[in-house]
């Protein structure tokens, strides 16, 4: 049995291979002189003819034995595994077809490994990159760089020397050059550390790493997400166990990295390294000493560990929990979208009380609200509080690690936000496995002078990620219609789930208002998008055409672009100022509700007014037409954007409502019935069950009705 098996993965190294084989043969010769036998296991993975020919024409007599096999993997990981399976040596040394090694590598690593025992994995002390670019990378033991450094980068190399027994516990993963994961070597090293193996740099050994402008590493860097697949090292329990002591030491000011020092390019003046360098230079002159003189030198002693330490905090918070649902939210506040998502969470838990939910809040927010409304088996992490020192890219990274490690089978939920969209833009190619659900609310509008344009972020996100998204959940049918008009693609991914509204059991009967004439309620923010000029024009026309009518205005300016004193100029308008809650308005005492927004989804205030039994007059903009059907569930005004023209239409509608109490009564009843049918809590729960295919919930909830 050979002492060492050199497992060489080959693909399309062409004319470079002869020099690689010479280098490996020299190392095998040197080892043999020192009493160490080496076998060569060459695995040709979809090779080109030049590579095949180079292998067959080379003098391999330096090796104790040679095994050559051909495979059809198209992937480095499985190719290394194929080689390892054939290897008979007590130790394995991995190699690639275009790199050289210092002639003492096998001998030094074998002796080092014999000293350290089978739990040791060895890497060369130096990488000298040459060819298209030159640099020197210096490697250190795991205890020096700490296992924390494996989270954000690979502090070791793909060329490793380990005891054959490791293969019983670990193989390389199949990480192809795709848009998804990459770096089977980094992944292998993480898993080895998770299994308790320790990494050591073998002194006075060098890997001469050929850099080409279109090598596999470069290709992987260009198209992948530059992250590794899920590794057992990052499961919270294992991570706390392996990395916790190191995080504690660093927190205590005892960073082990401070004890180590790099040699840098001073090794170029060390006779031992120089001899190794010149021996490699004789094989390939491109390994030229003077080119390393000015080359960049780096090591991992100074790697940024803040993300790794931050991830340790997350692991401490989540403990050993696993999650079924993960919500990526910017923050939690009292907005309509927040309420909607919160209701979804409650509906999911109502369906299955054991459902475990993780909420990651990824944007800076002074004070999250409604956290107390989260169900008990819900874990929320405010990344900006827990890991304040991390930048957004690091937040994204630790979120990915957490999702990989404790939500492997979870569903990912996100709403339109900078955090969610950034995360998706970076890691989208691997997120399909998490059946991502995107909550899609009506698009905002951006105003530029006299021009109003659709805010693009929501639709654009859907457009660019539709293939990866599993479901798009909209709070009204208009979104679905608009999106499909633009896309006409994968329509079955869209689901309409109307927002939830607590409604009284039955519609209140109308009672005398106590107010003289016909009184209308107007409630909203006093901002330009609510068309306050239209409101004023309505008041003016109303005064002339229906003198007994009055408009009661509630709300306050939030953008300071309206002077409330102007209301006093219209005698039929009464401004009541801000309000605390809708209940304070005693809405049921009015004869109708007036809504004048320039765009909207289905505004909550309309549902609240319908719940209060008011007939609604509203514009046919955005998704309002989905709720207000003209003369069925309200009076729907087709607006033109011209205040005077639209005011005339509003006043006509108000007059018809005032003149026809039967119409008013019919539309308020029908609106209430529609709201019950779509927005009642039971319907919402049924809707959630249907959207997510929670089939068992449907009969249960239906029975509960």
């Amino acid at each position: 049995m050979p002492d060492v098996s050199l497992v060489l993965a080959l693909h399309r190294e062409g004319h470079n291979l002869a020099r690689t084989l010479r280098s490996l043969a020299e190392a095998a010769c040197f080892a043999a002189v020192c009493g160490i036998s080496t076998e060569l296991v060459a695995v040709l993975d979809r090779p080109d003819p030049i590579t095949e020919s180079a292998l067959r024409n080379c003098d391999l007599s330096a090796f104790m034995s040679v095994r050559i096999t051909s495979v059809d993997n198209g992937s480095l990981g499985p190719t290394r595994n194929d080689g390892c399976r054939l290897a008979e040596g007590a130790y394995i040394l991995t190699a690639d077809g275009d790199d050289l090694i210092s002639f003492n590598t096998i001998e030094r690593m074998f002796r080092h490994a014999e000293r350290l025992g089978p739990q040791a994995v060895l890497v060369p002390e130096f990488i000298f990159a040459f060819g298209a670019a030159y640099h020197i990378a210096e490697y250190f033991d795991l205890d020096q760089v700490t296992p924390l450094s494996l989270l954000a980068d690979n502090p070791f190399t793909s060329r490793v020397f380990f005891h054959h027994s490791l293969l019983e516990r670990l193989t390389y993963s199949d990480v192809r050059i795709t848009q998804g994961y990459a770096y089977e070597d980094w992944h292998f090293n993480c898993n080895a550390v998770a299994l308790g193996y320790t990494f050591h740099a073998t002194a006075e050994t060098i890997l001469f790493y050929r850099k080409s402008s279109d090598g596999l590493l470069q290709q992987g860097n260009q198209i992948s997400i530059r992250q590794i697949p899920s590794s057992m090292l990052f499961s919270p329990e294992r991570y706390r166990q392996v990395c916790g002591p190191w995080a504690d030491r660093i927190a205590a000011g005892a960073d082990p990295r401070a004890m180590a020092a790099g040699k840098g390019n001073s090794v170029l003046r060390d006779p031992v390294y120089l001899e190794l360098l010149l021996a490699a230079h004789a094989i390939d002159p491109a390994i030229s000493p003077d080119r390393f003189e000015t080359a960049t030198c780096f090591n991992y002693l100074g790697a940024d560990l803040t993300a790794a330490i931050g991830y340790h905090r997350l692991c401490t918070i989540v403990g050993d929990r696993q999650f079924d649902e993960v919500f990526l939210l910017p923050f939690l506040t009292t907005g309509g979208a927040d309420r909607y998502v919160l209701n979804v969470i409650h509906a999911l838990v109502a369906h299955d009380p054991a459902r475990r939910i993780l909420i990651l809040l990824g944007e800076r927010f002074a004070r999250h609200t409604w956290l107390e409304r989260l169900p008990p088996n819900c874990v929320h992490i405010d990344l900006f509080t827990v890991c304040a020192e991390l930048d957004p890219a690091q937040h994204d990274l630790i979120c990915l690690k957490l999702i990989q490690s404790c939500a492997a089978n979870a569903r990912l939920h996100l709403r339109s936000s900078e955090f969610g969209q950034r995360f998706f833009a970076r890691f989208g190619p691997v997120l399909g496995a998490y059946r991502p659900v995107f909550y899609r609310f009506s698009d905002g509008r951006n105003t530029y002078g006299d021009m109003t344009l659709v805010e693009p972020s929501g639709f654009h996100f859907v457009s660019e990620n539709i293939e990866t998204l599993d479901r798009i959940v909209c709070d009204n049918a208009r979104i679905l219609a608009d999106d499909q008009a633009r896309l006409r693609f994968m329509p079955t991914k869209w689901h309409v789930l109307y927002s939830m509204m607590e409604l009284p059991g039955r519609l209140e009967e109308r009672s005398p208002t106590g107010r003289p004439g016909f009184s209308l309620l107007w409630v909203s923010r006093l901002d330009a998008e609510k068309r306050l000029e239209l409101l004023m024009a309505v008041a003016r026309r109303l005064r002339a055409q229906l003198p007994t009518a009055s408009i009661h205005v509630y709300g306050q300016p939030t953008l300071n672009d309206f002077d409330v004193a102007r209301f006093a100029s219209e005698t039929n308008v009464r401004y009541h100022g801000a309000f605390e809650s809708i209940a304070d308005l005693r809405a049921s005492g009015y004869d109708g509700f007036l809504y004048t927004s320039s765009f909207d989804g289905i505004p909550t205030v309309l549902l609240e007014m319908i719940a209060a039994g008011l007939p609604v007059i509203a514009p046919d903009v955005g998704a309002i037409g989905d709720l207000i059907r003209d003369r069925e569930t309200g009076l729907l005004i087709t607006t033109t954007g011209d205040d005077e023209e639209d005011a005339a239409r509003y006043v006509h509608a108000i007059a018809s409502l005032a003149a026809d109490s039967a119409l008013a009564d019919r539309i308020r009843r029908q609106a209430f019935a529609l709201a019950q049918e779509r927005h009642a809590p039971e319907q919402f729960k049924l809707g959630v069950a249907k959207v997510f295919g929670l089939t068992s919930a449907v009969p249960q909830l239906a029975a509960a009705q």
Partner: protein
Amino acid sequence: MTSIDVSVIITLHREAKYVARTLASLSDAATFARQRGITVELVAVLDRADDATKQAWQNARPNCFDNVQSIEVDNGSLGLSRNNGCAVANGELFDLIDGDDLISYNWIAYAFEAARQLGPTAALVPRFSFGFGADYYSVEYFSQDVSSTIGIVTGHPYTMKICASRTLFAACPYAEVSLTTGYAYEDWHFNCNATALGYRFFVVDGTALFYRQRANSLYRQSMRTSTGQIPPSPLFQPRTFLNVFADDAERISLRREHTRPVAIGTGILDDPVYRDVFARANAIDPAVEIGRFRWKSRGNFTNQLHDEAGLTYYRACEAVGVHPYDLVFLLPGGMPNGRQCPVVRAMQVLAQHNPQARILAFLDQPWIRDREPPPLPGSATLVDLHVLGSSLSAEQRDVLCLKLLQACTPAAPLHCSPSDFAQRFFRRFGVLLADRYITCYRPPDEKRTWNGVTFTDPRGFEFVSEHIGLIDRIIAFDQETVEADRYRLPGLDHKWHLDAETGNRTLPGRQHG
């Protein structure tokens, strides 16, 4: 069928989710044009379209054109598919668009009206191209008569969006530039060919192309894998280039009548016509959003290219003349220590053997010996890029060298030796030299000393090693070099030849140049 004024030719491959928006934009433009009495046809070319794209086309097939036709082809090539579309189109004018872009609602009408005014040799492009989606930017175009396009040698002054007479597309089909050829940009190439045929480019005011930027688009893919160059075009034949750009060269070189037009930049976002254009495009695809162009734009560019590169090419064309060459040499910067340059010596020998052979030699670094020009035979023409293009970057000079190689020496054998110039040129454009017979002269490697250690200068072997697949023959001058190279590159012994004292024993015969 009604006679068709404009055929809009759209190519579809894998744009399923964008097709509806593109067709909505085309429909908007066709409706506007038809209201002005212009008849419009839509021709869809589905090239290896996936099922989703075919379905999307069927679902969104518009009915507001005078005629709609679709064909399925199996090209895997944008250029060939456009040719297929042109072959079946019925219009007097052809208007090309990709399957994921939008146009301004007025484009078809205004382009047609401009074509009527400007005559059959006008090629029309929108005044603006707005990149949107994964990236935002704008490009403002100027007509060829107000902004010289002499820089077309190193950059594309226009866009794929072009509307022109059908006779142009018949005379000048699109080239196939698959990713494996090393070439790219069939549109740039097409526009070069159109310019060579005497077509002039005009900008249509008030119009725009909205050019979708995708994270993994074909364009970005081609940028990564190609040399960034177009296939040879007749425009770069010295005779044609000198004819087409004579006036431009005179104006530029004399700095006379050459005032560059002023770009409007973001000011266009306040122009009422363009605000209307934006509003209508935003309704079709919200990603076309004016604020993104104002605050998130990568830049506002124009098609005013680097005149110097074009002018240098013009001067080089004057220098090389209009007749083709038989041999090409890439010269190193001379030899140190008074040694004779092997490439120059080989040239002299070849000239002696073939006195009629026309030789073109390129030099791109100072000729180090005696500050004298290299001693070339009388039949050789020297293009000293380092002098001629002294204001250009090395990358630009390389492009000029490639263009001259392609234009003046289409199949001539190439002779070179390891040098910084040859290394740079081969690394960048080697893939485009695969059809040539290449001879490399390999002087012995210098020995160098660094920190008391003697080692071999790696550049000679490095060049040979990197480009051994392209090099047909290596002429070495000592046995030691031959053996060292063969040892490091086994299995290719036949490529090395040892030069005899006279230098002519193993030099190429006429059949190889």
